[in-house]
């Protein structure tokens, strides 16, 4: 308590000022006089009395000093003084301050803008408590080249019952449901989840409640929880929505809760409904029937490796038990493993996001180098002042602390401006980002982001202050003063340091430019890839028929035939078709099959392929070339011989030396044999950059007896595809007015969307690279410009002696080019170290593409020429007389 009071008094003392000083002096003086008088009374002479008093007191000045220190807080005072001094310096040279703050703001702002989504994607997904403890359980069939797929109900049950390892486990299946309560029927993204779903994620509803275990049973499962976005979009954020009954797939569901805006998983979900698995779904025979995403929460004391090992134990148990199909699974190298949830949910966005983070890191480094250069220039300008202060006894540490205070203050100001920039940047970023990749991600900075920004500010403050401070530590007061502030001995050293900084900046800028250039080239290469079909003029829309009205393939076929008939008769439609799975739709059905006359040997992989269900017009609509045999006709229907059309990859893989036409195959999941009637060209299904090479089996949609999930209706026109959406909608409405049709897109858009993440990364990297180029040029300009000032005397003499202006110009330009050349060389060396980071994002472009390197080096040199031309022109105009006199 007493101590606290004393601290407070001392803190107040800092503000005390001169009055306190005077009081101390007065009090000590009165003490001295009283002692002197007493001494006089003892019979001493006046001088003697005074001297005795001083001796008795023992050092007036040191007492005064110690009282002064004790009165305030010396550390705080000198800090305040440094701050005050720095602020005064900043006010005195506003140009310097503005450039410094803006440079750092750009660097810090860009980092904050990128860090915000990185944090939400990779570090702290919102609305999920302790995301690091979540594990996604995955299934693999190594021999079938299925590396990571969803799980079966028995696997979910195993994870749920592993109480020693997992606190909770939950399962989810995505389904699309038709909502018919609004003006037009619309399709919603639903997730059928087990009752534990929200517990696993630690997510609480903002209204109402979530599912109970009883509601997660067949027949009692007519309840729904709304996602925040759907609640706003469909129900206008009505707080009384809980308790309302809505119709989904023509069944009644009661809304029991609404989740907050922070929890929206799986991505883009509109509504959660209970999974309500039938008891027989858990039969051992269902073990290899995958379709559930299983997420489990580890117990706090169970490390990830242990959870993963446990999943392997579970899998071995299945293989060793007499599970139906275990032998087959063993052959296919079936297994279970865990993936940390964040890795799973970040998926393919992880690498690009990290690349961007690295790129902005480089931009910040460049910004720091630039501001360090500026600070150095300022120190040069103030060398005389610093030398005087050093000569007057200012300690070196004090001068260094002052420089760091100044750079930290500037960085802090930069961070504040940067935060505003970052908020705008993040908003822009989210708008430019590919659809779905940033679902549920907000732009407003949270605590993590603010902390990150503060860290970035401190780091960049120290980094940009350290070089100048180091220079200060070596300041030679004697030499500087003797030189009268002219071309002092420390000047060239500082200039050398600035040159090194500029070379470093140029190197970093080259790396960024090359990275951006390579991505740009990759992008151009991808746009030239032939996907194996012709997307032009084709419009697609999704229709998902509810099981209740369309329980089997035959009834679905009636509907699709009717739609196609109307579409074909619409003006402008050249071809119409339906496909369950069209290229670039993200739909990926696949399965295994047996070849007639081929019994797989134990350990031999079972043939596997992608599967599509298509109508006869499909191949024509997409212009997929027929290589052999024939495609489907209207005659291939339920009652006729079951037929399939395979693609060239499958033909090459399984019938390498024979004609596959007429051969028969049987899907392992179904019964009956299908005859191969045709071979068509291979089509890229998902991505222009990567082709798994997996073959495709096309089934005739009109021969399918089972009901199929969502189907794509395709309409091709030779003319303008904008009218096609209306044509498709009309045809569907006429066939069944209750059925929604949604997700209208041209195939061109679908192909282009598959490039969206790359386009996004390429654009951003391009932007950062241009920023880097600009900053490097600015840094070079600063150095050359200052060097011209330093050398104005020398240049003046040379001109006076008759040097031609061109030679002076060339001299200055060549200085700039030399620095940039060194930077380019250093950048090349740097690229050798980091090129592998980008390798996974490149396509048909070498990481050392000479063309890109040449272009980027040329761009840098051009910028350097411009940056040194401006000071060079000034050098040429140096007036010999005034230059000499200025000294």
């Amino acid at each position: 308590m007493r101590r606290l009071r004393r601290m407070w008094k001392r803190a107040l003392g800092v503000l005390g000022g001169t009055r306190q000083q005077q009081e101390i002096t007065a009090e000590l003086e009165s003490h001295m006089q009283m002692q002197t008088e007493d001494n006089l009374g003892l019979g001493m002479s006046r001088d003697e009395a005074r001297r005795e008093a001083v001796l008795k007191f023992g050092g007036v000045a040191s007492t005064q000093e110690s009282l002064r220190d004790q009165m305030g807080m010396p550390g705080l005072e000198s800090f305040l003084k440094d701050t005050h001094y720095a602020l005064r310096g900043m006010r005195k040279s506003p140009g310097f301050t503005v450039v410094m703050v803006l440079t750092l703001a750009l660097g810090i702002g860009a980092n904050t803008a990128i860090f915000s989504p990185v944090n939400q994607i990779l570090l702290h997904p919102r609305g999920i408590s302790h995301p690091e403890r979540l594990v996604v359980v995955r299934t693999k069939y190594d021999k079938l080249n299925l590396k990571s797929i969803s799980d079966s109900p028995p696997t979910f049950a195993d994870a749920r019952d592993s109480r020693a390892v997992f606190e909770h486990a939950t399962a989810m299946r995505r389904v699309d449901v038709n909502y018919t309560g609004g003006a037009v029927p619309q399709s919603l993204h639903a997730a059928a989840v087990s009752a534990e779903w929200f517990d696993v994620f630690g997510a609480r509803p903002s209204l109402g409640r979530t599912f109970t275990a009883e509601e997660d049973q067949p027949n009692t499962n007519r309840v729904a929880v709304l996602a925040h976005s759907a609640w706003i979009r469909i129900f206008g954020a009505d707080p009384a929505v809980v308790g309302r009954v809505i119709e989904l797939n023509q069944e009644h569901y009661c809304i029991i809760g609404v989740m907050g805006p922070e929890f929206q998983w799986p991505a883009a979900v509109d509504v959660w409904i209970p999974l309500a698995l039938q008891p027989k779904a858990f039969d051992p025979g269902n073990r290899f029937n995958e379709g559930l995403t299983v997420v489990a929460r580890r117990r706090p004391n169970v490390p990830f490796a242990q959870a993963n090992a446990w999943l392997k134990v579970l899998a071995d148990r299945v293989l060793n038990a007499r599970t139906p199909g275990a032998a087959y699974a063993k052959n296919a190298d079936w297994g279970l493993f865990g993936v940390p949830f964040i890795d799973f949910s970040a998926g393919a966005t992880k690498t690009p996001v990290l690349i961007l983070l690295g790129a902005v890191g480089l931009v910040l480094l460049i910004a720091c180098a630039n501001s360090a250069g500026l600070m150095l220039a300022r120190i040069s300008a103030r060398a005389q002042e610093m030398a005087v202060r050093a000569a007057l006894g200012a300690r070196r540490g004090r001068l260094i602390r002052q420089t760091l205070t100044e750079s930290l203050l500037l960085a802090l100001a930069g961070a504040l401006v940067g935060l505003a920039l970052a908020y705008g940047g993040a908003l822009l970023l989210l708008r430019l980002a590919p659809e779905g990749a940033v679902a549920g991600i907000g732009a407003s900075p949270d605590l993590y982001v603010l902390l990150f920004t503060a860290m970035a500010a401190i780091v960049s403050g120290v980094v940009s202050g350290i070089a100048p401070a180091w220079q200060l530590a070596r300041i030679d007061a004697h030499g500087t003063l003797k030189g009268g502030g002219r071309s002092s001995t420390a000047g060239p050293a500082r200039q050398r340091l600035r040159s090194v900084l500029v070379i470093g900046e140029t190197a970093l800028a080259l790396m960024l430019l090359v990275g951006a250039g390579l991505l740009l080239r990759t992008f151009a290469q991808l746009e030239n890839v032939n996907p194996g079909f012709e997307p032009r003029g084709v419009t697609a829309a999704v229709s998902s028929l509810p099981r209740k009205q369309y329980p089997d393939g035959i009834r679905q076929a009636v509907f699709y035939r009717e739609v196609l008939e109307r579409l074909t008769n619409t003006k402008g439609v050249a071809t119409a078709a339906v496909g369950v799975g069209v290229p670039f739709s993200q739909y990926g059905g696949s399965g295994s099959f047996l070849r007639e006359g081929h019994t797989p040997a134990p350990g031999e992989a079972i043939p596997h392929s992608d599967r599509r269900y298509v109508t006869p017009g499909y191949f024509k609509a997409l212009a997929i070339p027929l290589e052999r045999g024939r495609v489907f006709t209207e005659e291939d229907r339920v009652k006729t011989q079951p037929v399939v059309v395979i693609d060239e990859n499958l033909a090459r893989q399984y019938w390498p030396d024979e004609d596959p036409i007429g051969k028969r195959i049987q899907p392992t999941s179904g019964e009956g044999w299908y005859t191969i009637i045709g071979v068509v060209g291979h089509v890229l299904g998902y991505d222009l950059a990567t082709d798994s090479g997996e073959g495709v089996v096309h089934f005739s949609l009109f021969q399918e007896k089972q009901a199929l999930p969502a189907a794509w209706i395709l309409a091709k026109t030779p003319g303008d595809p904008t009218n096609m959406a209306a044509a498709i909608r009309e045809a569907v409405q006429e066939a069944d007015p209750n059925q929604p049709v949604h997700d209208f897109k041209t195939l061109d858009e679908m192909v282009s969307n598959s490039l969206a993440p790359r386009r996004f990364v390429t654009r951003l990297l391009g932007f950062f690279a241009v920023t880097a180029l600009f900053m490097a040029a600015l840094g070079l300009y600063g150095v050359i410009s200052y060097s011209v000032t330093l050398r104005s005397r020398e240049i003046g003499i040379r001109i006076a002696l008759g040097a031609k202006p061109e030679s002076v110009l060339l001299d200055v330009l060549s200085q700039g080019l030399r620095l940039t050349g060194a930077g380019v060389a250093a950048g090349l060396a740097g690229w050798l170290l980091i090129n592998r980071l980008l390798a996974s994002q490149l396509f048909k472009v070498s990481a050392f593409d000479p063309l890109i390197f040449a272009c980027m080096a040329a761009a840098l040199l051009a910028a350097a020429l411009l940056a040194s031309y401006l000071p060079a022109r000034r050098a040429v105009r140096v007036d010999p007389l005034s230059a000499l006199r200025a000294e």
Partner: protein
Amino acid sequence: MKKKTDVWQGTLALMVLKTLAVLGPQHGYGVARRIEQTSENLLSINHGTLYPVLLKLEQEGSIASEWGVSDNSRKAKFYRITKAGRRQLEAEERGWRQASEIVARFVTLRGVEE
């Protein structure tokens, strides 16, 4: 003449407080003189060391000060003990007595005679 002793660390505050408590308000010089007198000139203190102690005690709220006029009509700063100061003095006296008793016991310890 007896040998003069230096002031032990931390005891000066006690002496200042006690002096002010017994003799009432005093200026810095007065306090220094009284301490010397009380110790019968056995203690040698540099008067300068007294002022930091006075400032510390004032900042802690144990004493308060105001400017006044001394006996020989000279302007001086007078210190007086506060309530909090008296409490502190009591506590320190207790602590001091205890400490000196303990030390005294050791000093008077006699060796066991064989």
